[in-house]
């Protein structure tokens, strides 16, 4: 008796695996795989990106390059150690034609690796890891967002032009922070200033008080901060609560204030940040996009939605050129490379390394908006160091 029941259990378990293995095989649609965070800290970003992407496809009548689009979704959990498996889920199980993702830099590094190994088309709709369009660059890897370097560089330039000579930077000790600070330093140096102190704290600690005291003691001309999500909110609020915003201007890339202004409240008012998107842009495309998005999703779009939307545009441009025939990979890629993307952020093109060459706006926090102040750097391209393409 015992023997039979255990055997039965083993068969059942094996069967369950096999059953799950049988997937659908329809070939008529373009298969798009979203590998985005749907749980955890970045869940809201993942949703916005997916919404943006779907919005563009919807505007095209549910088609890209004349073919209907079928979606596949995987929650990447912002977990790099599972990223390869999650990516394979889309690439090998669902046999998607293109993967769109993701937010977390560490995860995107793994995705780029799989995309390279399996020659899968990958469009990165957020993560700014320099390596993706640097050493890891490849013909089949595109980015619709930014590199960490870009907003940093622009902010450095602006800070320098505003007369900041000694600047203190503060960030979590991780790659994205390092890259952003590096960009800022380059920009600042080109405008005559320099970074006098680099403050860091371990990711994802949010106890900033000690470092704020350190800033107060250093008395720099300005502070450049790189944080995201809850950390960004807390930092901006702590900075204001410590009274530092009255004497030392706080600069940062747009992520410091994007999507978090409601939470930051009065603390963020008047802050200057740089990003490739802003509120109040005088771009017709943006006005239409915002109206559509708000109507469709009953919530206002943000920069992540724009990046998702543009990912769809880039892909659409490629598919259009090959009339939806994804097997003509080279033509598809060539068309994407040459595309002029009519983005809500303003039109942009792609660099050789497949990163947007875009205007970086200087924005000022007014009420609940990151209102555009002007263009910090026009058509800024990432240096794409280490890219051999």
């Amino acid at each position: 008796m015992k023997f039979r029941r255990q055997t039965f259990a083993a068969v059942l378990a094996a069967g369950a695996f096999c059953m799950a293995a049988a997937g659908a095989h329809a070939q008529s649609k373009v298969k798009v795989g979203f590998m985005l965070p749907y749980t955890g800290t970045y869940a809201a970003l993942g949703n916005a990106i997916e919404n943006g992407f779907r919005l563009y496809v919807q505007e095209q009548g549910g088609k890209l390059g004349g073919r209907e689009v079928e979606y596949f979704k995987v929650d990447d959990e912002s977990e790099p150690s599972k990223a390869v498996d999650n990516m394979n889920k889309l690439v090998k199980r669902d046999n998607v034609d293109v993967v769109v993702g993701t937010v977390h830099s560490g995860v995107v590094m793994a995705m780029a690796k799989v995309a390279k190994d399996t020659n899968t088309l990958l469009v990165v709709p957020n993560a700014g890891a320099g390596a993706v369009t640097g050493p890891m660059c490849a013909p089949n890897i595109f980015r619709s967002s930014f590199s960490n370097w870009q907003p940093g560089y622009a902010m450095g330039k602006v800070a320098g032009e505003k007369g900041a000579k000694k600047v203190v930077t503060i960030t979590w000790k991780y790659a994205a922070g390092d890259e952003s600070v590096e960009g800022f330093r380059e920009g600042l140096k080109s405008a005559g200033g320099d970074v006098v102190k680099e403050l860091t704290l371990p990711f994802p600690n949010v106890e900033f008080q000690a470092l704020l005291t350190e800033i107060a003691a250093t008395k720099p001309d300005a502070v450049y901060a790189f944080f995201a999500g809850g950390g960004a909110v807390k930092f901006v609020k702590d900075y204001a609560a410590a009274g530092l915003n009255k004497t030392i201007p706080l600069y940062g890339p747009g992520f410091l204030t994007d999507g978090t202004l409601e939470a930051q409240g009065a603390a963020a008012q008047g802050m200057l940040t740089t990003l490739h998107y802003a509120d109040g842009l005088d771009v017709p495309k943006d006005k239409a996009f915002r109206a559509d998005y708000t109507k469709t999703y009953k919530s206002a779009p943000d920069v992540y939605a724009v990046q998702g939307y543009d990912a769809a545009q880039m892909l659409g441009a490629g598919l259009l050129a090959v009339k939806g025939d994804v097997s003509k990979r080279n033509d598809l890629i060539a068309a994407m490379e040459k595309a002029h993307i009519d983005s809500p952020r303003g039109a942009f093109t792609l660099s050789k390394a497949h990163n947007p060459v875009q205007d970086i706006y200087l924005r000022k926090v007014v009420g609940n908006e990151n209102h555009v102040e002007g263009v910090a750097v026009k058509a800024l391209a990432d240096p794409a160091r280490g890219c051999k393409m």
Partner: protein
Amino acid sequence: MDLAVFLVQCLNAVQYGLLLFLVASGLTLIFGILGVINLAHGSFYMIGAYLAYALAPWAAAHLGGGFFTALLIGLVLSVAFGYVLEWAFVSYLYHRDHLQQVLMTYGLILVFEELRSILAGDDVHGVPPPSWLAGSIPLGHVMTYPVYRLFMSGVCVVVALGLYAIIARTRLGMAIRAGASNREMVQALGVDIRFLYRIVFAAGVALAVLAGMIAAPVSSVYPGMGNQVLIVSFVVVVIGGIGSIRGALVASLLVGFVDTFGNVLIPQVAGVLVYVLMAAVLLWRPEGLFRAG
């Protein structure tokens, strides 16, 4: 570092340490007296923060009160919540080994985190401090110190004194102290041990929720905020000695100082400092600084 900066940093360290104490004290109570490793403790902190976020506007609109009304409601809710949770889940864990406690409370983390996502969404939200605490005190030339932070420290000190008074002076406290070492003695004191456990668990939950609520205006509320607190609270509890409130206080302050000065003086290794501290303390005293008993 000149003297003024040094003193301000000390203030920062104490202030951070006190907040840690608030979370860790509940954990050490549950751990020491009930013998339950409660991984879901960070979730209670998160629940507290979201309660503050949800209740403050509601209390303002319907009851005319602000932050403090919300705080009071939150505390009542959390005690009730802790009581029910003990009855529904935790009470099964007393005669199970630590591993099963870890497993079940890990399951609870997942459940709480998803319920949070379903009920409150995944966005970051701010919680405004009460207006009369929103000001700040000048500190040196450049810096000011927010009054609210001082208020937080005040609450923590009051809670610490309150806990001390309860444990040292009252019959319940005697039962709690006895419970940590000897169950029969508790029964001899005429206290129903099941009731005692339920109360202690509810109190532990309430402490974490309180910490979350009063930290919310400073930290804002966001997904995953509980997990961060969890690990450092465990570090505090273990350094202090499991079940010892006094140990938790000393350890919190110790961690506060190490973290504060580590970030400033040796940022290269700031991430590991707290863990080095824990390992060092345990190698020196394998059962923490203060053994409960």
